[in-house]
């Protein structure tokens, strides 16, 4: 009892006496009694349970989201890593937690740090869905002005904002895409640790790709010492993340600060991914150019040749522009004939296929992903020629433009053509058809793409079409990487762990190396095949164990 602080209210009675002495304004019985009723209605009579659910009757929460919020508040005491797989509604969970704390009067001042491209989306979501008056930070705002501010970490960490933020005392700090904080030596990491906060949520879809020490760093933001100190942790666990599977104790410790829901266990399983690989043959002219380009050895490094081949599989334009650049810079005559041939090429075979496919799909909304901007432009033009309306989307767009394009797509255009950079952070649940016009070499990025439409809020099966041209580098990637490992059907989340285990930090450059160092396409094929075999065999190892991780 003696350790409980007692804070009394001395203001009220002073003011009541003043009001009586001065014959001040008094409430009528009706209003007086209504204020009492209002308090009875809004107070929180119990320690446990979520009051916020009564406040948000218009949102249909999924079970795992409600459970997550309860767990974070009741057993993790408001400091946690939310590590659901992409598209299960981490934002919703975070919003629910913040709302609950606000209703209970535990949070007034909150700072929400998200990637620059997501600031508006967060602001909309919190305001419209949760009635949380969050504002996006603007240039001339001061950080004290609003209680709940959303900003990008890059803005926040710069002077003079940095100083201002460090002067504030936040009740609640949220970091989206927190996996970017895995390195404790970075400025961002140091900055986040020095922010004064009470409750803290770290959101990330990919925490387990990290090495153990990275998990250690994330946990140290929330609960320093929970996993010991840096030296003792390194000594005990080294940098080997396999230890996490062996060490039951460590696993339990991590579960105390992390919630991870997977698609397999949640309701989202109801909507399926219907995946179709579409193999296409080059037109004879295209094939000829491809072969010719493949056989050129000089003047460019093998490294770039594979890039030009990929571009040719995507569109004449993409390849032409890159080659033209070389010619201009290095004055290489040997490429000229190839360039001339490219100029003569007919419409790209894949573009024709896209038209066929969209016509077959009918009136539904379709997203097309391509790796190249030249292809994006070309497709937009080509679709227009066939009377199909489309809007482009790029990662480099400003926030406002992104929102606007999204709206155009929703209300007017049938097709959205996005480049890779547009993969992250735009939610398009209202669409359930996706064409991967060319495949990324990093399967995580494919997962990010699919996550745009196959996510919380999607109520139909999603259809995904993957294009690959036969007898080209595309076919190799499709058959040897994606199909062999069953990546389309499997949820890719686990791939992260596997790659980390195999010590492959970047699968894209791994594949790049394979192609570069092989003298023939046959050799490349064999090496790629080997790579997939290793990944596949690691896959088949106890996956079930992985699921314990971050889970009760």
């Amino acid at each position, binding site marked *: *009892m003696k*350790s*409980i*602080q*007692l*804070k*009394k*209210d001395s203001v*009220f*009675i002073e*003011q*009541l*006496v003043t009001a*009586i002495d001065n014959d001040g*304004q*008094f*409430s*009528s*019985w*009706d*209003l*007086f*009694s*209504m*204020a*009492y*009723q*209002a*308090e*009875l*209605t*809004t*107070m*929180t*009579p*119990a*320690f*446990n349970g979520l009051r*916020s659910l*009564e*406040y*948000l*009757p*218009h949102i249909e929460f999924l079970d795992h989201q409600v459970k997550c919020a309860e767990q974070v508040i*009741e057993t993790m*005491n408001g400091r946690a890593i939310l590590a659901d797989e992409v598209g299960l509604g981490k934002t919703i969970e975070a919003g629910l937690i913040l709302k609950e704390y606000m209703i209970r009067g*535990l949070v007034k001042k909150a700072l929400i740090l998200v990637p620059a491209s997501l600031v508006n989306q967060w602001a909309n979501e919190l305001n419209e869905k949760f*009635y949380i008056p969050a504002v996006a930070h603007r240039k001339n705002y001061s950080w004290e002005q609003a209680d709940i501010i959303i900003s990008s970490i890059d803005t926040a960490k710069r002077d003079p904002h940095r100083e201002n933020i460090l002067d504030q005392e936040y009740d609640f700090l949220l970091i989206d895409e927190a996996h970017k904080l895995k390195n404790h030596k970075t400025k961002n990491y140091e900055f986040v640790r*020095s922010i*004064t*906060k*009470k409750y803290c949520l770290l959101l990330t879809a990919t925490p387990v790709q990290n090495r153990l020490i990275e998990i250690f760093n994330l946990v140290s933001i929330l*609960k*320093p*010492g*929970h996993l*010991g*100190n*840096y*030296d003792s942790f390194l000594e005990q666990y080294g940098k080997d993340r396999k230890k996490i599977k062996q060490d039951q104790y460590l696993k339990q410790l991590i579960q105390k600060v992390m919630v991870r829901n997977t698609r397999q266990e949640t309701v989202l399983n109801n909507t399926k991914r219907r995946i179709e690989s579409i193999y296409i043959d080059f037109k004879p002219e295209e094939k000829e150019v491809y072969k010719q380009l493949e056989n050129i050895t000089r003047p460019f490094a093998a490294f770039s040749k594979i890039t030009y081949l990929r571009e040719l599989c995507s569109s004449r334009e993409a390849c032409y522009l890159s080659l033209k650049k070389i010619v201009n810079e290095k004055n290489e005559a040997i490429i000229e004939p190839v360039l001339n041939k490219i100029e003569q090429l007919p419409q790209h075979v894949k573009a024709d296929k896209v038209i066929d496919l969209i016509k077959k799909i009918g009136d539904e909304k379709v997203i097309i992903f391509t790796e190249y901007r030249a292809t994006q432009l070309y497709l937009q033009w080509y679709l227009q020629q066939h009377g199909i309306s489309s809007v482009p989307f790029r990662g480099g767009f400003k926030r406002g433009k992104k929102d606007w394009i999204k709206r155009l797509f929703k209300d007017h255009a049938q097709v959205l053509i996005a480049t890779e950079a547009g993969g992250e952070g735009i939610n398009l649940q209202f669409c359930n058809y996706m064409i991967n016009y060319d495949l990324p070499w990093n399967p995580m990025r494919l997962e990010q793409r699919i996550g745009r439409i196959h996510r919380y809020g999607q109520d139909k099966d999603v259809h995904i079409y993957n294009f690959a041209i036969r007898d080209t580098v595309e076919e190799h990637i499709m058959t040897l990487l994606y199909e062999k490992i069953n990546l389309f059907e499997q949820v890719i989340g686990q791939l992260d762990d596997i790659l980390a285990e195999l010590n492959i930090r970047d699968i894209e450059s791994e594949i790049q190396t394979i192609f570069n160092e092989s003298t023939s396409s046959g050799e490349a094929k064999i090496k790629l095949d080997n790579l997939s075999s290793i990944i596949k065999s690691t896959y088949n190892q106890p996956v079930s164990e992985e699921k314990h991780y971050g889970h009760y």
Partner: protein
Amino acid sequence: MAITNLDEFLQSYFTAHGCKLLQNKEGVITVQLTEEMDRVLMNRPFYWHYIKKIGQNGEPMQLSLISNPEKREEKGEWIHFGSPRLQQIINQLKQKEKYTKLFQIVNTNLNTPLYPWLVINIKISYKGKQKKDELISIGLHLVNGAMKLEMMNLLENIPLQPAISDYCYTISPIIKIKSGFKRIENVLDNYIQNQTHPWAEESSQALDEEIQMLKHFYTGDTDTQMEQMEKEINEITERYQPSIIYEVINGGLFYLTQDIL
């Protein structure tokens, strides 16, 4: 006594503020706001500023509130316990309706004494790892020192008004308001003392544990490290330190006849 019927609540609120109800059926309420209520609720200070500047009266708006989810398609705002509009109204109530002085209505032609009561509605918040609230309504007879709980329920059945009825006169308090408040506080203090507080023990324990963990985390003893540790100890203390908070929601003086006890 919590709000159970939102329509009735809204109706009383607007009526109490002199707004005319244009419609109230099947969970759709339309009111004609007064200028005062328009200024309070509609957030358009520029309009009012402008209209007064050009010497006109201005037209207060009508407000349609829909409490029936099935009527959400109709024109108006959907109002429910989480909606910004209800929160706004509730905040208005809590801010403005804090103090009162009321007299029991007595129909009599005999000289009738009214006795002063200090009525305090106070919220006790228990805050540790989690938080919960308790609302207590307590009345103190300022002449004989009698105390009553659930005072608001009792008052609900007594007709009250801001002015004293004819033939009635008030008895002067023997207990001063401030010392009356002290008495009420003492009763609450006792009430708290006599409870066990497992929640506080759990919180204190969590507090100790996390501070121990923290000390284990910091091995170096450079100034920056120490500073960071201090900061984090404060954060943890802020989060777990068990505390009990009294907050008076509202209260005031009530003059009542002797027989209400």
